[in-house]
Structure formats: C-alpha cells, structure tokens
C-alpha cells in the first residue's frame, strides 16, 4: 500500500512539470506527402517562435499519410493527390490546399543549354510511351529550329516510388494525350511503358545527370538547387513558356478554387503565359476531431502560415496560394468548425 502511494506521488511529481510545459506550448502532429515536406518543416520551425506551437511533421508519403489520418493517429494528414468528395465524406475529413509547386522537364543533352529546348505535351507523352525514341526525331527537330539535336537514344527516367510528383506528371500527360489516358492512366504510381525508374526526386535528377540523352521530371526546386537543364513547354494557349516565377503565378491565377475539396486543377490552365504543370498540395483535417483543441491548433498553424509564411515558401521555390484561395479555405473552416 505504502509503496503504491509512493509510486503515485512520484508519478504526479513527474507529470506536473510536463503539464506545465504543455500549457505553454501547443503541440500538433501530422504525416503524409513528401513533396511539401521542406516547407512544412520550415513553417514548423518558424511557428515555434511566432505562435508558440510545436509542429511535428513526418513525410511518410501521401498514401501512408491518408492511412494515418483515417486511423486518427495524427492531427492532420497531407496528400498531393486530392481525395474526392465521396472519400472525404466517408472518412469525415476536410481537405484544403496549402501551397503549390510546379514540375519541370529536365534533359541531359550535349550542347543544349538551360531553357533552350522546346517540347510540347504530346511529344512528352510519346517519349514516355516509348514512341519517340531518338532526340533527332522529326517532330522534335521541327519545333527546335536553330538547335542541333544529336542522333542519341532518349532515355526517359521516372519516379519508381509511388509519389505525388508522378501523380501530377501523369495527369498532365493524360490531359495532352488520349493514348496515355487509355493505355496508362493516372495514379501515384503507374505502369510506365518505357524508361527506367529511380527512387525519389534525387534519384531521377541523378539518373538524368549521369545518362546522356536522358529526360526526367522533377519539382522545380530540385532543378534550381541542382542546376539541372530544364526545357520550355508549350502551354494550352499555344505559347512556349519557360519555367519561371511569372509563368507559375500566371497558372495559379487562372485556377478555379470553387470545386469540392478545393481540388483545383492547375494542369494545362488557359492563361496565355501559364506554365502547364502546376499543382497544389493538400491537408486533410478531421471534421469530427477526438481532440478539439489540437484540431483548432492545426487551423491556427495554417492560418498563421497563410498570413506570414509566403516569403518562406517562395524562398524554397514553392508558389503561395492566391488570396482568393486563402479566403475560401478560411471560409470553409468557419462553416465546418464555427468561428
């Protein structure tokens, strides 16, 4: 009996300081997509000082993130491929975007400088379908007058691990090529008819750097930090655009955010200067939270990020959400959870 009381006392003594710390600093946990991981970590670091919140984000992959939020083992999940309205209702989840990113095509060709080469969506699709196999193919030569293209085999590289990056890339290819849509389809991992797979963005970047004649797709931030050779791509309006801040913003501006789950489609938007391959990344938040305080803290964190996080996002080559989108997300929070 004595011993038990003593143990209880010791337990209370240990818990008390911990409780004190808890009251001072709010803690939330999240898990999911790897693509926004750098910015979530950056925001988490800044939020600690700014709003006294400790955010613990694990980039385990979108699929695993969805699993964890369905099991409610984390406070929020993160995914690159949006869930549809039915999936959201079934799992009692609210979905909203946080930032956007863009994909670029990278190539390794002797004598070709950054943003010199021009490519179109159908050509990219046929390269990844294995139908265009050499760099001096008449279709590539026709739109690249002035460039000398070598008689070199095209080696397409893709993400071997399931990823949101692949999801965005193949949804672009499916949009510009009916054959891609019919034969391959869209998903976080698909059956690529040609080429070689590499693990992660760094794997694709490494393969393209090492193999002459290789082409690959990575997030823009990777291309910039690793100084990879990117290309121009023809957008829906018919203009060849370079992957740069202005064209990304043009794509973001022409998006329609009024769709269910904010699953706005930023691939092949209509703007005359819009970069064709831009995509938002999403947060999944329970609408029937087990712990209402933590749920509110998740909203407080992203509200802060919307307000003060744009500069950090741009430093890491992400594209901040336009103000209309932020307002719409805040309105959705208010409708769902009250003010």
């Amino acid at each position, binding site marked *: 009996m004595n011993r038990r009381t003593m143990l209880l006392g010791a337990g209370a003594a240990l818990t008390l300081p911990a409780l004190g710390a808890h009251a001072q600093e709010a803690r939330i946990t999240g898990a999911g997509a790897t693509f926004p991981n750098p910015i979530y970590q950056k925001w988490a670091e800044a939020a600690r000082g700014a709003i006294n919140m400790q955010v613990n984000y694990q980039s*385990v*992959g*979108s*699929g*695993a993130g*969805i*699993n964890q939020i*369905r*099991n409610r083992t984390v406070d929020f999940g993160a995914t690159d491929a949006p869930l549809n309205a039915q999936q959201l209702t079934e799992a009692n989840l609210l979905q909203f975007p946080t930032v956007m990113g863009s994909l670029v095509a990278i190539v390794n060709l002797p004598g070709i400088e950054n943003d010199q080469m021009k490519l179109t969506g159908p050509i990219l699709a046929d390269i990844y379908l294995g139908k265009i196999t050499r760099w001096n193919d008449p279709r590539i030569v026709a739109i690249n007058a002035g460039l000398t293209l070598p008689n070199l*085999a095209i*080696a397409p590289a893709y993400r*071997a*691990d*399931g*990823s949101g990056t692949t999801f965005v890339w193949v949804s672009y290819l499916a949009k510009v090529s009916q054959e891609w849509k019919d034969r*391959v*389809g*869209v*998903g*976080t*991992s*698909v*059956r*690529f008819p040609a*080429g*070689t*797979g*590499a*693990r992660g963005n760094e*794997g694709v970047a*490494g*393969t393209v750097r*090492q*193999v002459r004649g290789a082409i690959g797709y990575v997030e823009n931030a990777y291309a910039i930090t690793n100084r990879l050779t990117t290309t121009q791509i023809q957008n829906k309006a018919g203009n060849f655009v370079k992957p740069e801040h202005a064209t990304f913003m043009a794509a973001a501006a022409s998006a329609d955010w009024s769709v269910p789950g904010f699953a706005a489609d930023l691939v092949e938007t209509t703007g005359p200067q819009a970069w064709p391959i831009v995509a938002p990344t999403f947060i999944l938040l329970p609408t029937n939270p087990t712990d209402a305080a933590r749920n509110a803290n998740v909203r407080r964190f992203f509200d802060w990020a919307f307000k003060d996080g744009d500069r950090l996002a741009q430093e890491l080559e992400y594209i901040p959400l336009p103000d209309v989108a932020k307002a719409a997300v805040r309105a959705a929070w208010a409708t769902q959870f009250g003010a």
Partner: protein
Amino acid sequence: MFVLLLLGAIIVELFIAGLPAFQAFGIGFIWSTDWDPVQEVFGAGVSIYGTLVTAVLSIVLAVPLAFGIAFYLTELAPPWLRRPVGTAVELLAAVPSIIYGMWGFFVIVPAFATYVQPTLIDNLGELPLVGFLFQGAPFGTGIFTASFILAIMILPFIAATMRDVFEQVPPVYKESAYGLGATTWEVMRGVVIPYTRISVVGGIMLGLGRALGETMAVTFVIGNANRITTSLFGPGNTIASLVALEFGESEMGSLKLSSLLALGFILFVLSFVVLATSRYLLRSRLKA
C-alpha cells in the same frame, strides 16, 4: 521456441493480410506479370523473376571469387597475411547496404554506362543464341548491375564459410595426399573439396538468402521497371525493392497493399526454403 512462434506468427499474419490479393487474382498472382496500380491489377511474376535472376546471377559471380579467396587464405597465403586479408574480407559484411547502394549509384552505374555496357553490347549483342542477353540502351542500371552489387555484398559470407570449413579438413588427410606427391591444386580438388562439399553448398545458400532479401542497394541500381526484359542490362524489379518503393503510397484496405503483403509472404517462403536448406546441409558443421 519463442522465436519459432514469432516466426510462425509473422508468416500467418503476412498470409492473412495478403489473402485478398490471392483471392482476387487466384493462384495466377504468382506468375502474372501485370503490375498496374491504376487498373488495380497486380501480379508477382516480374518481381519474383527479378528476385530469382539477380540472386542466382550474384551467386554465379560471387562463388568463384569466394572460392579463390578461401583457397588462397587456407593453402597459399603466408601465415602473416592470412589474418589481415581474412579480416578485410569479413569487413565487407559490415558495410551497411545503403552505402553499397550509393556507391553503386554514383560510381558503378556511371562506370557501367560509359565503359562496361557499351563494350559488351557492341561485341556480344550480335552473337547468335545468346545475343539477346546483351542488347538494349546502356543505362548503367539494370539486372546485371544489381547482381554485381549483390555479388560483392554476399562475397564475405560465402568466403568466410568456405575458409572455415576448408580449415577443418584434418591435416592428416592433406599430408597423406602431399606425401603421395599431389600438387596443391590436386589436394584441393581431390581432398579438401570432397570433404567439405556439403558445407560449401550450405555457405552458398546462406549468401543466396541474403541476396534474395536485399532491398536498399538493389533499389538504387536495378532500374525499377515492372517489366520483364530479356536483356541483362534491362531494368527490372525485385520483391523487396518493389515493396519498399510502393508501401508509402498504398492505402489501407486497398488491393495494392494486400498485394504487397502477399509479395512479402512469397519472399518469406522463398528465403525460408533457402535458409532451411542451408541449415540442413550445414548441420554437421553446426553441431561441431
């Protein structure tokens, strides 16, 4: 006993989790070469093929080398050299597999892409009957590169086993053979190998078991394509590598997750058979 129970529980758990895949695709799951996450059609054929081919090929590359090392260390090397060389070989086993993967990706792959593969493709690709094994674009990655890395990884296991069993041959047998005028090689072939044959095979099986389950190093260099290519330089996939790559993007209750767990079950059975065989063959040595 406890370990055995745990092992059994893992097998049963994997089987139950993989059951939906076996139910959906039938027994054909094992040899179907489809792997299409979009249509939700899955088959284990490509990765089982990749697993077996890389494992067998790595054994083919590693065994002669391991035999040479063991032969040299037990019969030819001066005594002062035996310990350092033996330790160096065993140290290869201590290198983490991720290091082999990175070394493979950044050193071996470019070297293969620039020197080894173009030469082999140009010179052997046109041969009748076997030419198809050496065709294709020199990516540097692929089945052959994966087997090469695996061979280096399993080399220390096979070499150390061989050296140990060679040393257990009673000196009196060898001395009798030398007394009859046999050369070193004749002693090796006529006395040492027949005496240790079964243990040597057991050691090889041990290496094979490691090669079957290796994940990280293989993922880096195999090219990760879910297709069967006839060329040794073509990309492929292994069970372990496919599971590692796809696991993070498979949702709970999905057919994909179940298929991945079914693959895990198949891999478990494969390695279990190999390791059981090796223990059976090594049983006399393990008792000693």
